[in-house]
Protein backbone atom coordinates (compact mmCIF):
# COMPACT_ATOMS: atom_id res chain seq x y z
CA UNK A 1 0.00 0.00 0.00
CA UNK A 2 1.20 3.52 -0.75
CA UNK A 3 1.04 6.53 1.58
CA UNK A 4 0.12 4.54 4.65
CA UNK A 5 1.14 7.48 6.79
CA UNK A 6 -1.78 9.41 5.37
CA UNK A 7 -4.57 6.90 5.90
CA UNK A 8 -6.95 6.82 8.83
CA UNK A 9 -6.66 4.26 11.59
CA UNK A 10 -9.86 2.60 10.42
CA UNK A 11 -8.43 2.21 6.91
CA UNK A 12 -5.25 0.79 8.43
CA UNK A 13 -7.22 -1.90 10.19
CA UNK A 14 -9.02 -2.71 6.95
CA UNK A 15 -5.57 -3.20 5.38
CA UNK A 16 -4.47 -5.34 8.31
CA UNK A 17 -7.59 -7.41 7.68
CA UNK A 18 -6.23 -7.94 4.19
CA UNK A 19 -2.89 -9.19 5.46
CA UNK A 20 -0.89 -6.03 4.79
CA UNK A 21 2.00 -6.30 7.19
CA UNK A 22 3.08 -2.73 6.45
CA UNK A 23 -0.31 -1.54 7.75
CA UNK A 24 0.34 -3.26 11.06
CA UNK A 25 3.79 -1.68 11.11
CA UNK A 26 2.18 1.74 10.62
CA UNK A 27 -0.36 1.07 13.42
CA UNK A 28 2.60 0.06 15.59
CA UNK A 29 4.47 3.23 14.66
CA UNK A 30 1.48 5.38 15.57
CA UNK A 31 0.41 3.76 18.81
CA UNK A 32 2.99 1.35 20.22
CA UNK A 33 4.76 4.08 22.17
CA UNK A 34 1.65 4.97 24.16
CA UNK A 35 0.64 1.31 24.55
CA UNK A 36 4.12 0.39 25.76
CA UNK A 37 4.28 3.31 28.20
CA UNK A 38 0.94 2.32 29.74
CA UNK A 39 1.78 -1.39 30.01
CA UNK A 40 5.15 -0.62 31.59
CA UNK A 41 3.61 1.81 34.01
CA UNK A 42 0.88 -0.56 35.18
CA UNK A 43 3.24 -3.52 35.47
CA UNK A 44 6.26 -1.60 36.71
CA UNK A 45 8.37 -3.89 34.57
CA UNK A 46 9.74 -2.98 31.13
CA UNK A 47 10.16 -6.55 29.85
CA UNK A 48 6.66 -7.61 30.90
CA UNK A 49 5.28 -4.42 29.41
CA UNK A 50 6.87 -5.20 26.06
CA UNK A 51 5.40 -8.69 26.15
CA UNK A 52 1.98 -7.13 26.56
CA UNK A 53 2.59 -4.80 23.61
CA UNK A 54 3.68 -7.74 21.50
CA UNK A 55 0.57 -9.66 22.48
CA UNK A 56 -1.74 -6.74 21.72
CA UNK A 57 -0.34 -6.14 18.23
CA UNK A 58 -0.23 -9.83 17.35
CA UNK A 59 -3.85 -10.01 18.40
CA UNK A 60 -4.70 -7.06 16.18
CA UNK A 61 -3.03 -8.94 13.33
CA UNK A 62 -4.85 -12.19 13.97
CA UNK A 63 -8.24 -10.72 14.88
CA UNK A 64 -8.64 -7.22 13.40
CA UNK A 65 -12.41 -7.66 13.45
CA UNK A 66 -12.36 -7.12 17.20
CA UNK A 67 -11.79 -3.42 16.56
CA UNK A 68 -14.97 -1.62 15.61
CA UNK A 69 -14.27 1.94 14.44
CA UNK A 70 -17.84 2.91 15.26
CA UNK A 71 -17.14 2.31 18.94
CA UNK A 72 -14.02 4.35 19.50
CA UNK A 73 -10.53 5.11 18.32
CA UNK A 74 -7.89 2.50 17.54
CA UNK A 75 -5.64 4.00 20.19
CA UNK A 76 -8.21 3.64 22.96
CA UNK A 77 -8.95 0.11 21.77
CA UNK A 78 -5.28 -0.89 21.88
CA UNK A 79 -4.76 0.83 25.22
CA UNK A 80 -7.81 -0.92 26.70
CA UNK A 81 -6.50 -4.26 25.44
CA UNK A 82 -3.07 -3.63 26.90
CA UNK A 83 -4.47 -2.34 30.18
CA UNK A 84 -6.74 -5.35 30.62
CA UNK A 85 -3.89 -7.75 29.93
CA UNK A 86 -1.48 -5.88 32.19
CA UNK A 87 -3.99 -5.89 35.04
CA UNK A 88 -4.60 -9.62 34.56
CA UNK A 89 -0.86 -10.24 34.80
CA UNK A 90 -0.55 -8.01 37.81
CA UNK A 91 -3.37 -9.70 39.66
CA UNK A 92 -2.07 -13.17 38.86
CA UNK A 93 1.34 -12.26 40.19
CA UNK A 94 1.49 -13.09 43.90
CA UNK A 95 4.72 -11.22 44.35
CA UNK A 96 3.18 -8.04 43.04
CA UNK A 97 5.49 -5.24 43.84
CA UNK A 98 4.39 -2.21 45.68
CA UNK A 99 5.03 0.67 43.42
CA UNK A 100 5.17 4.26 44.31
CA UNK A 101 2.30 6.15 42.75
CA UNK A 102 3.47 9.06 40.72
CA UNK A 103 1.60 11.67 38.85
CA UNK A 104 0.66 10.24 35.49
CA UNK A 105 2.10 12.98 33.39
CA UNK A 106 5.37 13.20 35.29
CA UNK A 107 6.15 9.66 34.25
CA UNK A 108 5.93 10.42 30.55
CA UNK A 109 9.10 9.25 28.95
CA UNK A 110 11.20 11.25 26.58
CA UNK A 111 11.37 10.43 22.91
CA UNK A 112 7.99 11.05 21.35
CA UNK A 113 7.11 9.67 17.98
CA UNK A 114 8.46 12.54 15.93
CA UNK A 115 5.44 12.52 13.63
CA UNK A 116 3.21 13.21 16.62
CA UNK A 117 5.46 15.60 18.43
CA UNK A 118 3.72 18.78 17.41
CA UNK A 119 0.46 17.40 18.72
CA UNK A 120 1.87 15.68 21.77
CA UNK A 121 3.56 18.70 23.26
CA UNK A 122 0.48 20.83 23.03
CA UNK A 123 -1.82 18.06 24.22
CA UNK A 124 0.38 17.28 27.22
CA UNK A 125 0.08 20.86 28.41
CA UNK A 126 -3.68 20.78 28.18
CA UNK A 127 -3.89 17.35 29.77
CA UNK A 128 -1.95 18.54 32.76
CA UNK A 129 -4.45 21.37 33.17
CA UNK A 130 -7.36 18.97 32.79
CA UNK A 131 -6.00 16.45 35.28
CA UNK A 132 -5.10 19.18 37.78
CA UNK A 133 -8.58 20.61 37.64
CA UNK A 134 -10.17 17.34 38.75
CA UNK A 135 -11.13 17.20 42.44
CA UNK A 136 -8.28 15.50 44.30
CA UNK A 137 -10.44 12.60 45.53
CA UNK A 138 -11.57 11.76 42.02
CA UNK A 139 -8.09 12.08 40.56
CA UNK A 140 -6.53 9.88 43.21
CA UNK A 141 -9.16 7.16 42.81
CA UNK A 142 -8.75 7.12 39.03
CA UNK A 143 -4.95 7.08 39.17
CA UNK A 144 -4.83 4.24 41.69
CA UNK A 145 -7.31 2.21 39.68
CA UNK A 146 -5.92 2.90 36.22
CA UNK A 147 -2.18 3.16 36.73
CA UNK A 148 -1.99 1.12 39.93
CA UNK A 149 -4.10 -1.68 38.48
CA UNK A 150 -6.16 -1.83 41.69
CA UNK A 151 -9.83 -2.69 41.94
CA UNK A 152 -12.09 0.01 43.32
CA UNK A 153 -12.46 -2.11 46.49
CA UNK A 154 -8.68 -2.11 46.94
CA UNK A 155 -8.59 1.63 46.28
CA UNK A 156 -11.28 2.13 48.92
CA UNK A 157 -9.17 0.23 51.46
CA UNK A 158 -6.04 2.18 50.52
CA UNK A 159 -7.80 5.51 50.85
CA UNK A 160 -9.88 4.51 53.86
CA UNK A 161 -13.07 5.45 52.08
CA UNK A 162 -16.34 3.54 51.49
CA UNK A 163 -16.35 1.33 48.39
CA UNK A 164 -19.47 2.99 47.02
CA UNK A 165 -17.85 6.41 47.32
CA UNK A 166 -14.75 5.33 45.42
CA UNK A 167 -16.83 3.63 42.75
CA UNK A 168 -18.84 6.83 42.28
CA UNK A 169 -15.75 9.02 42.26
CA UNK A 170 -14.13 6.99 39.50
CA UNK A 171 -17.23 7.30 37.36
CA UNK A 172 -17.91 10.96 38.09
CA UNK A 173 -14.21 11.79 37.61
CA UNK A 174 -14.15 10.16 34.19
CA UNK A 175 -17.30 12.03 33.22
CA UNK A 176 -15.87 15.28 34.48
CA UNK A 177 -12.64 14.69 32.58
CA UNK A 178 -14.59 14.04 29.43
CA UNK A 179 -16.25 17.41 29.74
CA UNK A 180 -12.96 19.13 30.52
CA UNK A 181 -11.26 17.48 27.55
CA UNK A 182 -14.08 18.61 25.31
CA UNK A 183 -13.80 22.15 26.69
CA UNK A 184 -10.07 22.03 25.94
CA UNK A 185 -10.85 21.06 22.35
CA UNK A 186 -9.58 17.50 22.69
CA UNK A 187 -11.28 14.66 20.95
CA UNK A 188 -13.88 13.12 23.34
CA UNK A 189 -16.34 15.73 22.16
CA UNK A 190 -16.08 14.30 18.68
CA UNK A 191 -17.56 11.02 19.80
CA UNK A 192 -20.75 12.56 21.14
Amino acid at each position, binding site marked *: MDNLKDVSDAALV*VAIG*RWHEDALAEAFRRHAGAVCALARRVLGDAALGEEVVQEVFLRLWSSPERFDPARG*SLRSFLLAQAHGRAVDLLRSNSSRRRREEKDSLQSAEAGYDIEREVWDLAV*AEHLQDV*VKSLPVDERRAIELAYFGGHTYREVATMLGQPEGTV*KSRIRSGLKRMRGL*LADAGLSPAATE
Partner: protein
Amino acid sequence: MMGHEEIESLLGAFALDAVDDDERQIVEDHLRECPRCRAEVEQHREVAAHLAFAGSTAPSGLWGRIAAELEPAQPEPELARIYPVRRETAVPPWIGRALTAVAAMIVLVVGVLGWQIHREQGRVRNLAAQLSRTDGLNRAVRDATLDPRSAKFALTSVDGKVHVDAVMQADGTGYLVSHGSLAPLGKDQTYQLWGIVGAQRISLGLLGGSPDVVAFRAAGAKMSALAITAEAVGGAIQPSRAPVASGFV
Protein backbone atom coordinates in the same frame (compact mmCIF):
# COMPACT_ATOMS: atom_id res chain seq x y z
CA MET B 1 -29.29 -9.90 40.81
CA MET B 2 -27.97 -6.41 40.19
CA GLY B 3 -30.32 -3.72 38.95
CA HIS B 4 -29.56 -1.38 36.09
CA GLU B 5 -28.65 1.47 38.39
CA GLU B 6 -26.21 -0.63 40.35
CA ILE B 7 -24.55 -1.87 37.16
CA GLU B 8 -24.38 1.70 35.85
CA SER B 9 -22.52 2.75 38.99
CA LEU B 10 -19.82 0.20 38.13
CA LEU B 11 -19.22 1.40 34.58
CA GLY B 12 -16.37 3.77 35.39
CA ALA B 13 -14.50 1.18 37.43
CA PHE B 14 -15.27 -1.47 34.81
CA ALA B 15 -13.81 0.68 32.03
CA LEU B 16 -10.57 0.93 34.03
CA ASP B 17 -10.47 -2.85 34.70
CA ALA B 18 -10.98 -2.01 38.37
CA VAL B 19 -13.78 -4.44 39.21
CA ASP B 20 -13.60 -7.96 40.62
CA ASP B 21 -14.06 -10.91 38.27
CA ASP B 22 -17.65 -11.61 39.35
CA GLU B 23 -18.66 -7.98 38.79
CA ARG B 24 -16.83 -7.90 35.48
CA GLN B 25 -18.88 -10.86 34.28
CA ILE B 26 -22.14 -9.22 35.35
CA VAL B 27 -21.26 -5.96 33.58
CA GLU B 28 -20.11 -7.75 30.42
CA ASP B 29 -23.38 -9.69 30.28
CA HIS B 30 -25.31 -6.46 30.74
CA LEU B 31 -23.35 -4.61 28.04
CA ARG B 32 -24.37 -7.16 25.44
CA GLU B 33 -27.98 -6.06 25.97
CA CYS B 34 -27.60 -2.36 26.77
CA PRO B 35 -26.28 0.01 24.08
CA ARG B 36 -26.47 3.01 26.42
CA CYS B 37 -24.14 1.47 28.98
CA ARG B 38 -21.91 0.18 26.18
CA ALA B 39 -21.57 3.71 24.86
CA GLU B 40 -20.73 5.00 28.34
CA VAL B 41 -17.95 2.43 28.74
CA GLU B 42 -16.50 3.39 25.35
CA GLN B 43 -16.56 7.04 26.39
CA HIS B 44 -14.76 6.25 29.65
CA ARG B 45 -12.13 4.31 27.69
CA GLU B 46 -11.55 7.23 25.34
CA VAL B 47 -10.98 9.43 28.39
CA ALA B 48 -8.62 6.84 29.86
CA ALA B 49 -6.73 6.82 26.56
CA HIS B 50 -6.08 10.51 27.09
CA LEU B 51 -4.89 9.83 30.63
CA ALA B 52 -2.47 7.31 29.22
CA PHE B 53 -1.14 9.88 26.81
CA ALA B 54 2.46 9.27 27.75
CA GLY B 55 3.43 8.55 24.20
CA SER B 56 7.01 7.43 24.07
CA THR B 57 8.78 5.55 21.36
CA ALA B 58 8.45 1.80 21.65
CA PRO B 59 11.80 0.11 22.28
CA SER B 60 13.85 -0.65 19.23
CA GLY B 61 13.67 -4.30 18.37
CA LEU B 62 10.10 -4.73 19.60
CA TRP B 63 8.64 -4.40 16.13
CA GLY B 64 11.18 -6.92 14.86
CA ARG B 65 10.02 -9.44 17.44
CA ILE B 66 6.40 -8.89 16.45
CA ALA B 67 7.13 -9.09 12.72
CA ALA B 68 8.95 -12.39 13.25
CA GLU B 69 5.82 -13.89 14.76
CA LEU B 70 3.32 -12.76 12.15
CA GLU B 71 1.54 -15.48 10.29
CA PRO B 72 2.59 -15.47 6.66
CA ALA B 73 0.37 -13.47 4.35
CA GLN B 74 -2.55 -15.48 3.12
CA PRO B 75 -3.02 -16.29 -0.54
CA GLU B 76 -5.73 -14.66 -2.59
CA PRO B 77 -8.58 -13.98 -2.40
CA GLU B 78 -7.93 -10.99 -0.18
CA LEU B 79 -11.53 -10.99 0.93
CA ALA B 80 -10.76 -14.12 2.93
CA ARG B 81 -10.33 -12.05 6.04
CA ILE B 82 -13.18 -10.47 7.88
CA TYR B 83 -13.41 -6.84 8.83
CA PRO B 84 -15.25 -5.73 10.81
CA VAL B 85 -17.90 -8.36 11.51
CA ARG B 86 -19.62 -6.64 14.39
CA ARG B 87 -21.44 -3.89 12.59
CA GLU B 88 -25.00 -4.40 13.69
CA THR B 89 -26.90 -2.94 10.77
CA ALA B 90 -24.77 -4.05 7.86
CA VAL B 91 -27.11 -6.81 6.64
CA PRO B 92 -30.82 -6.44 5.98
CA PRO B 93 -32.89 -8.97 7.92
CA TRP B 94 -34.21 -10.71 4.79
CA ILE B 95 -30.76 -12.00 3.95
CA GLY B 96 -30.73 -14.22 6.99
CA ARG B 97 -33.99 -15.82 5.92
CA ALA B 98 -32.98 -16.25 2.32
CA LEU B 99 -29.53 -17.70 2.74
CA THR B 100 -27.87 -20.31 4.83
CA ALA B 101 -25.87 -19.15 7.81
CA VAL B 102 -22.63 -19.64 5.91
CA ALA B 103 -23.81 -17.74 2.90
CA ALA B 104 -25.07 -14.98 5.14
CA MET B 105 -21.66 -14.68 6.73
CA ILE B 106 -20.00 -14.42 3.32
CA VAL B 107 -22.43 -11.68 2.33
CA LEU B 108 -21.75 -9.90 5.60
CA VAL B 109 -18.02 -10.08 5.10
CA VAL B 110 -18.10 -8.90 1.52
CA GLY B 111 -20.76 -6.29 2.28
CA VAL B 112 -18.98 -4.78 5.23
CA LEU B 113 -15.59 -4.86 3.57
CA GLY B 114 -17.20 -3.31 0.54
CA TRP B 115 -18.59 -0.59 2.77
CA GLN B 116 -15.15 0.13 4.13
CA ILE B 117 -13.58 0.23 0.68
CA HIS B 118 -16.45 2.33 -0.58
CA ARG B 119 -15.83 4.79 2.22
CA GLU B 120 -12.18 5.11 1.30
CA GLN B 121 -13.01 5.41 -2.38
CA GLY B 122 -15.58 8.02 -1.45
CA ARG B 123 -12.86 10.13 0.10
CA VAL B 124 -10.83 9.94 -3.10
CA ARG B 125 -13.90 10.81 -5.16
CA ASN B 126 -14.63 13.76 -2.88
CA LEU B 127 -11.11 15.05 -3.36
CA ALA B 128 -11.35 14.63 -7.12
CA ALA B 129 -14.73 16.37 -7.14
CA GLN B 130 -13.40 19.25 -5.11
CA LEU B 131 -10.37 19.60 -7.32
CA SER B 132 -12.38 19.48 -10.52
CA ARG B 133 -14.58 22.43 -9.63
CA THR B 134 -14.15 25.28 -12.04
CA ASP B 135 -13.63 28.11 -9.60
CA GLY B 136 -10.20 29.67 -9.45
CA LEU B 137 -9.21 28.41 -6.02
CA ASN B 138 -9.81 24.80 -6.84
CA ARG B 139 -8.08 25.15 -10.17
CA ALA B 140 -5.09 26.54 -8.28
CA VAL B 141 -5.18 23.61 -5.87
CA ARG B 142 -5.31 21.19 -8.77
CA ASP B 143 -2.38 22.88 -10.50
CA ALA B 144 -0.36 22.91 -7.29
CA THR B 145 -1.13 19.23 -6.70
CA LEU B 146 0.03 18.34 -10.19
CA ASP B 147 3.25 20.35 -9.84
CA PRO B 148 6.03 17.85 -9.07
CA ARG B 149 7.96 20.52 -7.14
CA SER B 150 5.11 20.89 -4.62
CA ALA B 151 5.25 19.27 -1.19
CA LYS B 152 2.16 17.18 -0.48
CA PHE B 153 1.36 16.04 3.01
CA ALA B 154 -1.52 15.70 5.45
CA LEU B 155 -2.54 17.24 8.74
CA THR B 156 -4.22 14.66 10.92
CA SER B 157 -5.50 14.26 14.45
CA VAL B 158 -4.10 11.56 16.71
CA ASP B 159 -7.24 9.50 16.36
CA GLY B 160 -7.22 9.85 12.57
CA LYS B 161 -10.69 11.41 12.47
CA VAL B 162 -9.44 14.71 11.11
CA HIS B 163 -7.59 14.51 7.81
CA VAL B 164 -6.68 17.68 5.94
CA ASP B 165 -4.68 17.37 2.74
CA ALA B 166 -2.06 20.05 2.24
CA VAL B 167 -0.01 21.06 -0.76
CA MET B 168 2.75 23.68 -0.68
CA GLN B 169 4.35 25.11 -3.77
CA ALA B 170 7.98 26.05 -4.04
CA ASP B 171 7.09 29.78 -3.81
CA GLY B 172 5.46 29.28 -0.39
CA THR B 173 1.85 29.31 -1.60
CA GLY B 174 -0.09 26.52 0.03
CA TYR B 175 -3.58 25.05 0.03
CA LEU B 176 -5.58 22.97 2.46
CA VAL B 177 -8.46 20.65 1.54
CA SER B 178 -10.39 19.56 4.63
CA HIS B 179 -12.81 17.02 3.09
CA GLY B 180 -15.33 18.19 5.67
CA SER B 181 -13.34 16.48 8.43
CA LEU B 182 -12.98 19.73 10.41
CA ALA B 183 -16.12 19.94 12.51
CA PRO B 184 -17.91 23.29 12.01
CA LEU B 185 -17.22 25.68 14.89
CA GLY B 186 -19.63 28.01 16.64
CA LYS B 187 -19.86 31.60 15.38
CA ASP B 188 -17.50 32.79 18.12
CA GLN B 189 -14.66 30.53 16.99
CA THR B 190 -12.38 30.10 14.00
CA TYR B 191 -9.77 27.64 12.89
CA GLN B 192 -6.26 29.08 12.73
CA LEU B 193 -3.31 27.70 10.81
CA TRP B 194 0.17 27.68 12.35
CA GLY B 195 3.57 27.07 10.84
CA ILE B 196 6.25 25.54 13.03
CA VAL B 197 9.66 27.11 12.44
CA GLY B 198 12.22 25.77 14.89
CA ALA B 199 10.65 26.26 18.31
CA GLN B 200 8.38 29.05 17.06
CA ARG B 201 4.75 28.84 16.07
CA ILE B 202 3.85 31.41 13.46
CA SER B 203 0.28 32.21 12.50
CA LEU B 204 -0.34 31.58 8.82
CA GLY B 205 -3.90 32.87 8.92
CA LEU B 206 -7.46 32.35 10.02
CA LEU B 207 -9.37 29.62 8.20
CA GLY B 208 -12.93 30.44 9.34
CA GLY B 209 -15.28 28.21 11.28
CA SER B 210 -15.96 25.71 8.55
CA PRO B 211 -13.08 25.65 6.09
CA ASP B 212 -13.31 23.58 2.95
CA VAL B 213 -10.56 24.62 0.55
CA VAL B 214 -8.30 27.48 1.64
CA ALA B 215 -5.09 29.09 0.47
CA PHE B 216 -2.25 30.36 2.63
CA ARG B 217 1.19 31.89 2.25
CA ALA B 218 4.23 30.53 4.05
CA ALA B 219 7.01 32.27 2.16
CA GLY B 220 10.23 33.37 3.80
CA ALA B 221 10.60 30.70 6.46
CA LYS B 222 11.31 27.01 6.37
CA MET B 223 8.30 25.33 7.94
CA SER B 224 8.94 21.96 9.53
CA ALA B 225 5.29 21.34 10.35
CA LEU B 226 1.82 22.84 10.17
CA ALA B 227 -0.88 22.68 12.82
CA ILE B 228 -4.50 23.80 13.01
CA THR B 229 -6.11 24.99 16.25
CA ALA B 230 -9.57 26.25 17.11
CA GLU B 231 -9.38 29.78 18.47
CA ALA B 232 -11.69 32.61 19.42
CA VAL B 233 -12.86 34.73 16.48
CA GLY B 234 -10.11 37.16 15.62
CA GLY B 235 -7.45 34.57 16.18
CA ALA B 236 -4.65 34.26 18.71
CA ILE B 237 -1.06 35.47 18.80
CA GLN B 238 0.05 32.05 19.97
CA PRO B 239 -1.97 28.79 19.94
CA SER B 240 -4.17 28.73 23.05
CA ARG B 241 -5.45 25.20 22.56
CA ALA B 242 -4.18 21.83 21.43
CA PRO B 243 -4.06 21.33 17.66
CA VAL B 244 -7.04 19.62 16.10
CA ALA B 245 -4.67 18.41 13.38
CA SER B 246 -0.98 18.63 12.62
CA GLY B 247 1.51 17.23 10.18
CA PHE B 248 5.10 17.51 9.08
CA VAL B 249 5.85 19.28 5.82
